[in-house]
């Protein structure tokens, strides 16, 4: 009986969404169903983490036997509960539940709220599916599920043209990147012989392949890796051919990273995330801040030991993450919509996480993912509260003076902002500095870029708070805001507590010393009763110099905040006018010009080919050739007796000639 409980983790939100889709409820009934399923999920997640609910027997969906030439294929629907998935599950269900509760108040007036909660339930189903997937194909299935629910929820107000366009953009970007993901999955399958991501054995064949490891772990020999990580990687030999060519490994790593690029909005594919702010604010909080965009990072951490097999891949991941971080931070400096600023800050923090994975610190990435989930959700929900209070006003230059008028929202927002910046003792400080330490160990350039990004983060977040909340009101709506109802403020408070405390929890509960704290963080949170021999160890990080390396980021943060405070206090318009940043580095325009027009050119070309070559040349051409032959043969019918006689005799003569003389 025990093992069937876990299926409700997936079935409850699925049932809720299907029944809402079938319109079995009144709008309020739909809310009840959806929130109920979310709380059930959360309770089950608590049970999984500490209550001893075990993973159910997987259900084998497709099972194809392998042979000497090709690997077999076994796709099952099952669940895996190790430290990584337990942590992520708690975050997903917990933040999800809080957002559900917040949405009760936020969407209370909207006539389409049943559809909204249906979308949220589909999202919960898909996201928990990603977290507990045992194999990559199952994960891909749920991956597309979150893409679908993101599309439905971004385009929730579909009558608005910008919302519909943004939904399309998100889906297309995701789909494009998922193509790379699929290639990665297939290469993974070829190399590993299975699509399962349950930890696999590092056999002795590993060091036969002599693949160089990234610098971070170069001090460890393969045996030490095996001993420390507890994970094992088996590399398959098929038919005597060694498949571990560096090219294939790199393709696998880059392919898997492709999925992350789309879902977590890394540099070339980041354009959908700011536009996704067209959706309602709870959607932005849940999907585009806390959970869905983190799915990419989660996936990378899930397959992390494999990423080590390709040096180029790992470095590439780190570079992309780093670049995205600073790129987004620069753009955010000049944005004026409160949700856009938060969206770009999400992009920036995702860049941090991906950079952490690339630098050899998946535990740092997961840590930051957790803290980021808390404070970013908090920031978005608080922003939603502000927007709600000001009657749908989103431009920060039309706000102001709200700190006295809606104090609860203000203080929770401030706490979230401090956590985001990385101000000690809030949680963001711990997670961000862990990442910077990893980056420094990998390569100092990443560290300095990270520091610069921290400076910019402090700058624009302080700008946001100062302009939106402090000073005097700049518009009519800002003069008379109303505080949000309790159903909306309770989640804010809970999230604020979590943002503040989640860093300290790890600190107090570990042995002395920062080093042990960092990578025992996961262990201490969950019990180790899972039978799968992965007790949450990740790659060992070398010693860090806690003095200088903690001080520099803190100084950057401090000066950034100070500079911004003095620059923006009591202003009515923005003193900085950097067009390049305000126009988001013209990336959207570039895509429009090159890609969209290129695609339209291609479509036009194909249309031309279809009309002229396929239709004209081949179809009608073929017809005309037949007609032409007919016209030619028609000339044979002269109607003249003597011509007929001539041809007849000519034929006879030729026949006799060729029979008798020519052979």
């Amino acid at each position, binding site marked *: 009986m025990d093992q069937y409980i876990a299926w409700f983790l997936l079935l409850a939100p699925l049932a809720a969404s299907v029944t809402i889709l079938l319109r079995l409820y009144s709008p309020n009934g739909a809310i009840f169903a959806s929130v109920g399923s979310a709380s059930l999920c959360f309770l089950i997640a608590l049970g999984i983490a500490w209550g001893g609910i075990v993973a159910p027997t997987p259900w084998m969906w497709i099972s194809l036997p392998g042979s000497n030439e090709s690997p077999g294929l076994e796709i099952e629907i099952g669940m895996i509960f190790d430290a990584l998935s337990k942590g992520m599950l708690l975050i997903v269900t917990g933040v999800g539940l809080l957002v559900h509760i917040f949405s009760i108040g936020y969407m209370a007036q909207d006539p389409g709220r049943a559809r909204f909660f249906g979308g949220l339930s589909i999202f919960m189903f898909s996201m928990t599916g990603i977290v507990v997937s045992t194999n990559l194909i199952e994960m891909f299935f749920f991956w597309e599920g979150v893409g679908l629910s993101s599309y439905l929820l971004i385009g929730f107000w579909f009558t608005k043209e910008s919302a519909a366009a943004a939904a399309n953009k998100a889906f297309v970007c995701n789909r494009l990147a998922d193509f790379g993901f699929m290639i990665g999955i297939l290469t993974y399958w070829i190399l590993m012989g299975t699509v399962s991501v349950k930890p696999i054995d590092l056999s002795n064949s590993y060091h036969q392949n002599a693949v160089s490891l990234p610098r971070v772990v170069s001090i460890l020999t393969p045996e030490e890796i095996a001993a420390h990580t507890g994970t094992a990687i088996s590399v398959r030999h098929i038919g005597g051919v060694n498949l571990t060519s560096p090219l294939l490994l790199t393709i696998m790593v880059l392919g898997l990273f492709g999925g992350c690029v789309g879902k977590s909005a890394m540099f070339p594919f980041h354009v959908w995330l700011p536009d996704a702010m067209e959706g309602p604010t709870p959607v932005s909080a849940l999907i585009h801040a806390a959970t869905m965009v983190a799915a990419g990072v989660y996936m990378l951490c899930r397959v992390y030991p494999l990423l080590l097999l390709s040096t180029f891949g790992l470095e590439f991941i780190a570079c992309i993450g780093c670049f995205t971080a600073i790129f987004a931070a620069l753009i955010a400096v000049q944005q004026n919509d409160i949700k856009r600023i938060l969206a770009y800050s999400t992009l920036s923090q995702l860049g941090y996480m991906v950079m952490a994975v690339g630098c050899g610190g998946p535990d740092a990435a997961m840590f930051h993912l957790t803290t980021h989930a808390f404070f970013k959700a908090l920031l978005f929900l608080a922003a939603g509260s502000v927007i709600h209070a000001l009657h749908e006003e989103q431009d920060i230059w039309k706000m102001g003076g709200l700190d006295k008028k809606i104090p609860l929202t203000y203080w929770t927002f401030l706490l979230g902002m401090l956590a985001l910046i990385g101000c000690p003792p809030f949680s963001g400080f711990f997670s961000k500095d862990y990442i910077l330490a990893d980056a420094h160990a990998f390569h100092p350039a990443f560290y300095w870029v990270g520091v610069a990004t921290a400076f910019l983060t402090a700058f624009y977040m302080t700008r946001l708070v100062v302009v939106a909340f402090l000073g005097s009101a700049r518009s009519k709506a800002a003069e008379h805001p109303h505080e949000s109802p309790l159903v909306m403020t309770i989640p804010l408070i809970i999230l604020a507590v979590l943002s503040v405390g989640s860093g300290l929890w790890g600190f107090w509960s570990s042995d002395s010393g920062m080093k042990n704290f960092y990578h025992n963080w996961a262990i201490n949170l969950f019990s180790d009763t899972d039978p799968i021999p992965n007790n949450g160890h990740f790659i060992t990080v070398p010693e860090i110099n806690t003095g200088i390396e903690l001080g520099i980021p803190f100084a950057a943060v401090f000066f950034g905040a100070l500079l911004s405070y003095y620059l923006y206090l009591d202003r009515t318009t923005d003193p900085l006018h950097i067009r390049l940043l305000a126009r988001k580095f013209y990336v959207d325009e570039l895509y429009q010009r090159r890609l969209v027009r290129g695609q339209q050119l291609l479509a036009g070309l194909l249309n031309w080919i279809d009309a002229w070559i396929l239709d004209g040349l081949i179809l009608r051409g073929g017809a005309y050739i037949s007609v032409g032959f007919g016209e030619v043969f*028609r*000339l044979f*019918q*002269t*109607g*003249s*007796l*003597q011509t007929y006689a001539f041809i007849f*005799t000519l034929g006879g003569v030729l026949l006799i000639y060729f029979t008798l003389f020519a052979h």
Partner: protein
Amino acid sequence: MEITLNHYLAVAATLFVIGLMGVMMRRNLIIIYMSLEMMLQAANLTLVAFSRFNGHLDGQVFVFFVITVAAAEVAVGLALIVALFRLRQTTQVDNLTTLKF
């Protein structure tokens, strides 16, 4: 000189070719038909020459039948030409091109 079988055959072939030229060149239907008859007679000559060459009379019997059938055929053919003339009022083959495309 010795007159051999080949001489007779050559003469018959020449007559045949003359008939062929008549068929292809003349425009009057009657003349064409007459040339056709001449081709038949050339074949008769060939047959008789071969019959004499082989020493038995089967070739001559064949010629007997050919002459008979040729006569019948001429009768029917001329009847056709008369009917055609009644319809078209012409026997010039240039005017009888209804089967032209």
